[in-house]
């Protein structure tokens, strides 16, 4: 195993460019946070994002005052923008966990300089996602008793046989574990900032949040074990979360939802959408903060490749959905596919979706597009739109014409649907801007391990090396150590 790993590692191109040592790495990443002068473009970006976030505040206020009738939801389209946006946001979050956990277990060194803000992106995306189903209940403070099991005065419990309750458990666990993972990764870097901060206030705050971390060998030993175990726990977790989200649909009987392919297809779609969002954030960030030494072109190319691979799985999912519809020989399923693709009122949404998710990614086969940050950025935006359209197609075109023609109805969003969605985008970027300002956007201590000088006697100190595998060659009869 070790040999295979050495070969695997030696084949990966260097992930840090430029002439760097421990000190310059710490300064370069830490100074973004510690430098007193905040760049002007930060104020512009934060200001715009914060203004857009006010749309969310306004919508939620009106919503709580007047009820969900302000949205375009109707019968039969009871799940509309709120669930589309919920699935869209939670899917975006998945790339963060994939990068931080699955790529860690797979010894992919390129995760090191993008995991920190990909995890932050996960947290903020999950926060945006959670708002939608909660507010869809209309009065969230009255919904608690059927969402969470607690002994209430009515003596009733949540229905654990329902995927909607599974969803509550999956999403809340996912949010909690993502927060823990992110915070554990931050502790040593917060200690670095504590030791470097000149300002008393910040020194105190970073000191509190780094919990007195001092980099002791014994601490690092347990730290790495904890980090690795968290990665091992997050991997099945992230796969379960979007699988359970997809079960919200596929456990029901509605044609277009009732499909066994949903769990893997949703997970692939989530990673696809998530990598698109990581690219949307990375490409400007590495230019604005001059981080090209750590987030190299290789990183972007790899992310482009992951996007292509997961995108192709998603396209396969579209093909299979159509095939299942035809092969089922059920008149409702056949009708649903026809309705979705060419006969129904929303046929153009389907073709826009194919254009965004199916056609646009084909450019990633070519080096010219993969190696150009500009084109990756454009394709990522197109893919993000495409993934939103996918959820629209699944939810609205399946519901608006189900079994009985007498219950068919058209759906169109109101201005509040749009303002809530756009508002969460503003909220998301507000949080991203605050994160970039106050916390190290790249994991400083993990980048240190990538430097050649971190090798001890030529032995690489990869952070992702399994500490559980370290062989203990010293003589056990040595003085026992406490």
């Amino acid at each position, binding site marked *: 195993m070790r040999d295979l790993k050495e070969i695997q590692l030696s084949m990966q191109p260097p992930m840090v460019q430029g002439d760097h*040592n*421990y*000190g310059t790495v*710490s300064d370069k990443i830490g100074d973004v946070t510690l430098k007193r002068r905040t760049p002007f473009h930060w104020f512009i970006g934060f200001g715009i994002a914060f203004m857009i976030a006010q749309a969310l505040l306004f919508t939620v206020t009106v919503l709580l005052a007047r009820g969900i009738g302000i949205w375009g939801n109707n019968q039969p389209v009871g799940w509309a923008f709120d669930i589309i946006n919920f699935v869209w946001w939670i899917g975006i979050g998945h790339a963060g966990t994939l990068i931080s956990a699955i790529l860690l277990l797979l010894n992919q060194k390129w995760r090191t300089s993008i995991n920190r803000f990909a995890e932050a992106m996960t947290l903020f995306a999950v926060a945006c996602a959670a708002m939608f189903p909660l507010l869809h209940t209309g009065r969230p403070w009255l919904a608690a008793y059927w969402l969470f099991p607690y002994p209430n005065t009515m003596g009733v*419990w*949540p229905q*654990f*046989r329902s995927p909607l*309750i*599974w969803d509550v*458990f*999956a999403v809340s*666990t996912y949010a*909690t*574990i993502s927060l*823990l*993972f992110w*915070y*554990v990764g931050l502790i*040593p870097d917060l*200690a*670095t900032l504590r*030791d*470097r901060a000149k300002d008393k206030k910040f020194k105190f705050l970073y000191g509190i949040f780094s*919990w*007195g*971390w*001092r*980099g*002791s*060998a*014994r601490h*690092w*030993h*347990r730290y790495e*074990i*904890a980090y690795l*175990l968290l990665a091992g*726990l997050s991997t*099945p*977790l992230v796969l*379960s979360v979007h699988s359970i989200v997809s*079960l919200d649909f596929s456990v029901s009987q509605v044609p277009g939802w009732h499909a066994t392919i949903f769990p893997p297809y949703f997970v692939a779609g989530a990673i696809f959408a998530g990598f698109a969002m990581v690219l949307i954030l990375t490409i400007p960030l590495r230019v604005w903060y001059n981080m090209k030494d750590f987030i190299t072109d290789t990183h972007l190319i790899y992310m482009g490749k992951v996007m292509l691979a997961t995108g192709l799985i998603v396209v396969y999912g579209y093909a299979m959905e159509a095939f299942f519809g035809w092969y089922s020989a059920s008149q409702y399923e056949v009708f649903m596919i026809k309705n979705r693709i060419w006969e129904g009122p929303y046929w153009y949404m389907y073709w826009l979706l194919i254009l965004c998710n199916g056609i646009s990614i084909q450019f990633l086969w070519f080096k010219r597009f993969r190696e150009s940050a500009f084109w990756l950025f454009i394709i990522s935006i197109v893919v993000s739109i495409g993934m939103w359209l996918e959820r629209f197609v699944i939810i609205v075109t399946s519901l608006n014409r189900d079994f009985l023609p007498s219950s068919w109805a058209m759906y169109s969003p109101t201005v509040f649907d749009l303002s809530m969605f756009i508002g969460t985008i503003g909220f998301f970027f507000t949080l991203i801007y605050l994160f970039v300002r106050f916390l190290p956007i790249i994991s400083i*201590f*993990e980048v*240190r*391990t990538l430097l050649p000088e*971190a090798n*001890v*006697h030529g*032995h690489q*100190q990869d952070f992702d090396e399994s*500490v559980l595998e*370290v062989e*203990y*060659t010293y003589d056990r009869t*040595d*003085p026992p*150590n*406490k």
Partner: protein
Amino acid sequence: MSDKLYGLMAEFDSATELVDAANAVREAGYTKTDAFSPFPLHDIDEALGVKRSILPVLVFFGGITGLMLGIALQVFVHYIDYPLNVGGRPYLSWPSFVPPSFELTILVAGFTAVFGMLFLNGLPRPYHPVFNVSRFALASREKFFLIVEAADPQYSYDETRGFLESLGPQEVFDVPE
């Protein structure tokens, strides 16, 4: 500054020097030692004789606890406290209890991993004698430190100081209690 010392601390420039020094210190018979580095060094575990942590065992039992909690909760709710007949399905419909039980397994195991790690590390501890050495601020940046505590049975100020100096450090510091 009091006379009592917590220990003696040597500063090194590179990871290799630190690991070599840690090996030498262990071979000389010192046991109450510790090393500080700006990133995790695997070779140091071996050099200092750090025992393998019990944390994975705790996390395993944390996961089992979460699993039991999930099963117990759902069996209590749907079988004991409030059996509800939904479409003639069995009260003990265990396949639908799997996802929440799984999520709780992960949740409790994750909490155990993080808080177990912090607990075993004795954190949070904002103050520690090593912070008394002003150069120690560089331990989170680029320098490597090795400490021999005064509590070590073999410790004697002059001898230990001389020994640490023989290992080729940048400097040896007294660490006040």
